[in-house]
Structure formats: structure tokens, C-alpha cells
């Protein structure tokens, strides 16, 4: 009897509660591509935190679909003739979620913090004269040397993004992370409902004033059409697909073409190829034998066929392409000069190069992060091709955390070091020679792989100073030619994943990072 009573109560509660909840609110339940844990987008380069940043924060500029920066929070801006002074005016009516108006001081504080934390930001900091708030809405950046891509940098969608945060929160954070997640973006973050690794909740920012221009990538109007967005992390893609099929979630940010086969043809489910593309890259350890010798690196490059990698790891030819550009093929800088990996493996060439380099069977250690889906297959395929060329290859598998630590070790291979490792990049991260970490030239102090080349370093400085797109493109071609001679990195192809959603949800807007404004649910 107690059970039936309980059931009756439960039923009654459900009947009363359900319509109340459903009527009033449009809730978009979506599955992000990874679980959100860190909330400060300036602390981590994790893409999921960057996407969270675009929900909560706004940017001064945003890229449009032609990868041209357009003002977003800024209404007017100007640059002096000599390219040393930039003035910006903020749009009127901008307000943070706590009600405070967005002032130039906030923008200045945000940019200053960003310049200590971002690679490109730091490059700007190196030539920074002063950054000052001139009034509540106006601020000026003055440089000691020209930095042609300053506005591109402020629009950069690759992590770490220069989001605008309240100065008081930045001041409170000091060296550490921001404690309060308050921005001026289209959604308000509900801190009380945040469950790290499980779910994050955003509600519509009622006070948000969108721009008038039509939405175009990260520029233009950011309309919020739903009341609430719930990010639900799924540890298992099969379950994700099933949940979408049953309508338990409305949208899945990223779904691989293999998983897509599970929902293809399911009633009520639609899907699109995402704009964002991913590029797995092969990175070589320049410090240690045998790859301290460029010839050996060229031998590796000679064995790489992007097509084979893509066919094996992605499969569906609709979703991948062979791309000879180090900046990604979506980039305005895309070029085929001296491309790597665009032809079939050439064992003869590789063997000749190895002989020239005097390769003597030194061990080649390939690092493999076995728990990361997007890394699957990269190490074994590389291993197979390099073995075909006659290298003595060993694959070391580990979880991602160990992988990151292992990849930071500069020791010789015989003492636990590594030779070849991988990375998987969102297209915006490769797009600019300045922010593309794989083109790092700082050697042992720089990005894992520790590539260095003075010639490339000065080319990058030229690029930073270049003032026109044409000039930039020309320098970029030189950069690619030089980088590929020395084999800074080898792109392994470019692929796209799908975004899948219920048919009562309007298709997500295209953008190089996933954005969730402009989505409606009926």
C-alpha cells in the first residue's frame, strides 16, 4: 500500500510540475564536445572553455565569414598612419551580467591580462607602449613598433581569446583564476548550477544588446532565442547518439562520422557538417637524435600521406580533405607552397634521406595518447609507415595526462625521451603564423618539439609588421616554404565533424568555433 501511495504522490507531482516547467521556458539541452571544468578562459587553452567564454563574454572584434575582423563590442576604431597608435570606442549600452556598465577600464584590464597569458598577446606586449582608458568608452593602445595584425589578434577565435571581463574581478584574481564568471556576452552563466565535468547552465542575458549586422561567424548580431542552455557532458558517444535519437538532448556539438552512422535516418534527427575543421599534426623532437638532423625529419615527411591518415582515421571522404597549407585551407593565408603530405608515401626518397643523414637504426619513439578519441590511429599508422621506410620504431601508449608530461621531456630517446608526438588543432589555431604554436622558433624554451630557426623567426616578425593582407600572404608563403624545408610539423589532413540536432531546433549558425546564439527551439 505504501508503494502505491508513493506512486500516486509521484504521479500527482509530475502532473502538476511538468506543464509549469515546459510552458514557460525554452530550454536547449546540448552536448558539448568535451566536459567543462575550468571556467577562466584565460587559464587554459581547452576548446570547451573557449566556447564557454563565447557564451558568457563578448569580444572587441569578431571574425566574419571571410576571416576579416569586424567590430563587435567596439563601435568605432582607428589606427594612426604609422601603425603605432590605435584608438577604440565601445558601443553604448554594453553591460555586464551584474548590471555594471562595460567601461574602457574593463577593456584595458582585460587586454592587459590577456597580454600576459596569450602567445600573440605576449608578442603585442613586447611592442606595447601604453594601453590607456581615455574615458568611460574610449581607450588607446600605443605601440613602440608596428604590429600589423593587432586587430586580427583582438578578434582571434583561437584560444586564448581576449574576452572582456570586469576590472574588479580581474583585480581580485591577481595571478590566479577569476573567481566570478561575469561577462557581457549573450548568455549569463549560472554559477550555482555548475557541476564541473557534468553540466553547465546558461540563461539568456536579457540586457544584451546585439549588433544590427546579420550574424557572420563570430561577428554581427548575437541573438538569443532560447531562455536557457544546458551543457550536458556525456562520457560515451554511443549514449550521446542514443540520447539524441530519443530526443533527450536537442543538440550534439560534435559527432564523428562513425558515430553519425548510428543516428543516420533516425526520425527527428538532422545534422550538418561543422565549419570548424580539425587538423591532426605530427610534431618531431628537434633536440634529440635522430631527428636533430633535418634530413631525418624530411624522411618522416616523405612517408606521410595525408590521404592515408584521413582514410584510416576518419574514413568518410565527404568529411576530410588533403590540405597542403600549414595554416589550414580555410585560412586566407592558405597556400600549397612546398606542401608536405599531399602525395603518396615515398619510401625510396625517405631511405635516401636517411642514408644521407647517416641513420644508424637509432630508436624512434612515437608517443600515443590512448584515451583521446581524436588521437586514435595516428601513432600506429605513423609507426607502420616509418617502419616501411626502415626506421626502428617503438610506440609508447599512455593516457593523455602522462602524454602531456612525457611530451615535455627533452631527454634523449634512450633516457625516456620521445621522437614523434601528435596534436589535434581547431582550424583557427593554425590560421595565423603568430598564433600557430607549431611554428614556434624558441627552441628548448618553446613549445614541445623545440623547433628553432632564426630565419623563420624574422619572417614571423615581418609578418607581424605587415600591414596589408597581400603582404601578409606573401610572407606566409615564405614561412611555409622555410618551415617545410626544416619540417616544423606535418599536417596529417583536415577533417570536419558533424553537429547533430533535433528537427525542432534551428540549425546552429556556422562559425569556426561552435556558437550557440541564433539557435531557436520550437
Amino acid at each position: 500500500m505504501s508503494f502505491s501511495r508513493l506512486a500516486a504522490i509521484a504521479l500527482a507531482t509530475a502532473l502538476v510540475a511538468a506543464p509549469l516547467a515546459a510552458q514557460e521556458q525554452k530550454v536547449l539541452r546540448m552536448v558539448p564536445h568535451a566536459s567543462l571544468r575550468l571556467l577562466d578562459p584565460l587559464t587554459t587553452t581547452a576548446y570547451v572553455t573557449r566556447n564557454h567564454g563565447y557564451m558568457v563574454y563578448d569580444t572587441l572584434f569578431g571574425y566574419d565569414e571571410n576571416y576579416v575582423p569586424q567590430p563587435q563590442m567596439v563601435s568605432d576604431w582607428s589606427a594612426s598612419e604609422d601603425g603605432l597608435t590605435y584608438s577604440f570606442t565601445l558601443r553604448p549600452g554594453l553591460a555586464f551580467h551584474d548590471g555594471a556598465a562595460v567601461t574602457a577600464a574593463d577593456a584595458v584590464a582585460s587586454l592587459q591580462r590577456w597580454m600576459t597569458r596569450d602567445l600573440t598577446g605576449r608578442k603585442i606586449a613586447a611592442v606595447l607602449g601604453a594601453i590607456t582608458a581615455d574615458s568611460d568608452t574610449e581607450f588607446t593602445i600605443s605601440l613602440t613598433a608596428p604590429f600589423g595584425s593587432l586587430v586580427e589578434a583582438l578578434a582571434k577565435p583561437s584560444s586564448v581569446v581576449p574576452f572582456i571581463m570586469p576590472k574588479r574581478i580581474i583585480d581580485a584574481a591577481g595571478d590566479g583564476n577569476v573567481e566570478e564568471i561575469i561577462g557581457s556576452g549573450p548568455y549569463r552563466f549560472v554559477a550555482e548550477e555548475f557541476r564541473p565535468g557534468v553540466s553547465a547552465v546558461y540563461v539568456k542575458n536579457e540586457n544584451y544588446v546585439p549588433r544590427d549586422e546579420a550574424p557572420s561567424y563570430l561577428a554581427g548580431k548575437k541573438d538569443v532565442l532560447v531562455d536557457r542552455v544546458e551543457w550536458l557532458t556525456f562520457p560515451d558517444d554511443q549514449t550521446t547518439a542514443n540520447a539524441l535519437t530519443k530526443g533527450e538532448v536537442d543538440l550534439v556539438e560534435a559527432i564523428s562520422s562513425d558515430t553519425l552512422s548510428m543516428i543516420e535516418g533516425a526520425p527527428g534527427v538532422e545534422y550538418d557538417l561543422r565549419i570548424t575543421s580539425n587538423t591532426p599534426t605530427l610534431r618531431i623532437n628537434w633536440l634529440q637524435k635522430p631527428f636533430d638532423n633535418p634530413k631525418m625529419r624530411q624522411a618522416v615527411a616523405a612517408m606521410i600521406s595525408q590521404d592515408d591518415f584521413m582514410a584510416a582515421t576518419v574514413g568518410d571522404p565527404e568529411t576530410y580533405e588533403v590540405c597542403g597549407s600549414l595554416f589550414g585551407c580555410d585560412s586566407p593565408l592558405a597556400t600549397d607552397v612546398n606542401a608536405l603530405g599531399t602525395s603518396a608515401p615515398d619510401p625510396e626518397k625517405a631511405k635516401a634521406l636517411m642514408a644521407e643523414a647517416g641513420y644508424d637504426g637509432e630508436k624512434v619513439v612515437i608517443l600515443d595518447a590512448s584515451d583521446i578519441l581524436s588521437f586514435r590511429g595516428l601513432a600506429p599508422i605513423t609507426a607502420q609507415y616509418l617502419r616501411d621506410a626502415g626506421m626502428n620504431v617503438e610506440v609508447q601508449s599512455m593516457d593523455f595526462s602522462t602524454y602531456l608530461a612525457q611530451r615535455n621531456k627533452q631527454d634523449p630517446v634512450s633516457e625516456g625521451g620521445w621522437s614523434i608526438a601528435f596534436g589535434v588543432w581547431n582550424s583557427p589555431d593554425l590560421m595565423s603564423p603568430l598564433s600557430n604554436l607549431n611554428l614556434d622558433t624558441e627552441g628548448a624554451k618553446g613549445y614541445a618539439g623545440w623547433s628553432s630557426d632564426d630565419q623563420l623567426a624574422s619572417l614571423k616578425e615581418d609578418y607581424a609588421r605587415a600591414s596589408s593582407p597581400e603582404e601578409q600572404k606573401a610572407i606566409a608563403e615564405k614561412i611555409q616554404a622555410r618551415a617545410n624545408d626544416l619540417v616544423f610539423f606535418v599536417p596529417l589532413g583536415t577533417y570536419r565533424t558533424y553537429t547533430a540536432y533535433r528537427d525542432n531546433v534551428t540549425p546552429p549558425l556556422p562559425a569556426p568555433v561552435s556558437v550557440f546564439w541564433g539557435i531557436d527551439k520550437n
Partner: protein
Amino acid sequence: MIRLIVLRLLAAVPVMLVVATFVFLLLRLSPGDPALVVAGEQATPEQVEQIRRDLGLDRSLPVQYVTWLSQMAQGNFGASTLSGQPVLDLIADRVEPTLVLALVTIVVTVVIAVPLGAIAAWHHDGWRDRMVMTLAVVGFSVPSFVIGYTLMQLLALKANLLPVQGYISPFDDPLQSLKHLVLPAATLAIVFMALISRVTRASTLEILGEDFIRTARAKGGNENRILWKHALPNAAVPVVTVIGLGIASLISGVVVTESVFNIPGLGRLTIDAILGRDYPVVQGLILVFSLTYVFINLLIDITYLIVDPRIRY
């Protein structure tokens, strides 16, 4: 009884210290670096160094250990390196789903598996016995995630009876909560039932050979009474023991089930924390697990006192 409880909890301290130290060393000596995990793949060395300082990972191992122990002694479990949230909050947030799932599973299992095992023993070598034992051995032989996917396909997708995934608190919406619990609990229960029904059968079988069962049969009356009134209560001690010891393996099962059915519980939190080298969270969790283990053993001991008057502490 109170004496028992107090002494047990005191005895738990060395156990937990052993576990905590073991885990501390295991984690700190491992190759992973939480600063790198936090910084993300594209971070520069400076960024990583900054984070490492923030997390206090630049200090020597003994200093870290002492700091951690003294914090622990003050009830301060620290904050997650991955999310910056207090460890206790994180754990508290994830306890309920795991606890509810485990409890439902245990109840379902005990209600079904114990009678099944007893019936199998009663009809030893008969068709009922064979059937129960076959089911049990099959339940034992299929990976739990396969059982989970299969149930999901059949009951959630094909038959459309139940939701695929997720967790809803019974305190918010009992009916929905129950619906969401059916599949994960069934998945877990199939494995756990296999274990419990086997143990129940074996211990009942043993008890059925005891002299007092003959005494009971000599009394006349319905034979079923002997099974339920005489054999089963006596078989309870080993069954209770196995249920108790099974909790640890149940939590292991929960890890997989939580992944399959997307339940935000402790298992997933632990895996994420281990893979993300979130030391404070792992250490906090391990202490929670040890405490649970001690607590469950205490419960078992108290249950012994209830089911078997011969046991005195």
C-alpha cells in the same frame, strides 16, 4: 553496540592513513603533470609554470605531503586542480547518484537474487537450480557495458519504454527518477545478482545439510517453511558478508554503468580525476571510499549481531 561503532571507527584511522599515503605516493610519483592538464595542449611553458606555482606543485614532495596531511586533519580537502572547486563540494555533488544507484541495485538484487539462490538450493540439481545457475553464470560472463548497451537498445530505443540516459534525483521527481534508474540499476543488478544468487545457493545448500534442518523437517508441516524460516536466516551471514564485500565491486560496476548511462556519480568523477591528475580530488575520493568501506563493514558487523545471536562483540 556504541562501543563497537566507536572502536571500529578508531580502527579505521590506520587503514585510511595507509590508503591515503599509498594513493598520495602513487599519484605524486606518476609521470602526469596536473599543471599541463590544466593549461591544455596549446599552452606555453610560461603558462604551465604559472599554473604549477598556483597549485603548489613546485614544492618538494615531503612538503606537499605534510601540507596535505595537515590540511586533511583540519577537514580541508583542498580544491580541484581541474576546476578549482572545493573537493568536498565536488564529491558531495556526486554522491547522491552513486548512492541511490547502489542502494536501488542492492535492494533489487537482494529481493530477487536471495530467493532465487535459495530456491535453486532447495531444488538442488533440478531444472530450477540449473536455470538460476545458468543465468548467474551468464550474468557473470558478459562485460557490464555490453549488458548496458543491450538493455538500452532493447528497452529504451526499440521498445521506447525508458529514457536512455541521465539521472534525476528522487527528491525532485520520484517517478522520473525511477524511470531513469531502471536501466542502470538493471545492468548493475544482473552482474550483482549473479554473485549473490550463487553465494545464497551455496550457503543455503550447506545449511540444508545441517542437523537442525532435519529437526525442522521432523516437525512436519509445510516443507517450504524450512527453507524460508530455518535455512535462509542461517544462510544470511555469508550472504551479508558477500553483499558487503561486493559493495566495492559494485562501485567498480557503477563506474562503467555511470559512463554508459551518463550518470554524474562518483565513479566517473574518480576516472576523470585520475586521468586529469586532479590529485586533491582523487585523494578526497579515496578517503571517501575507504570511509564507506569501513562504514559498510560496520554495518555488516551490526547485521551479524541481528541475524546471528551467537555473534557477540
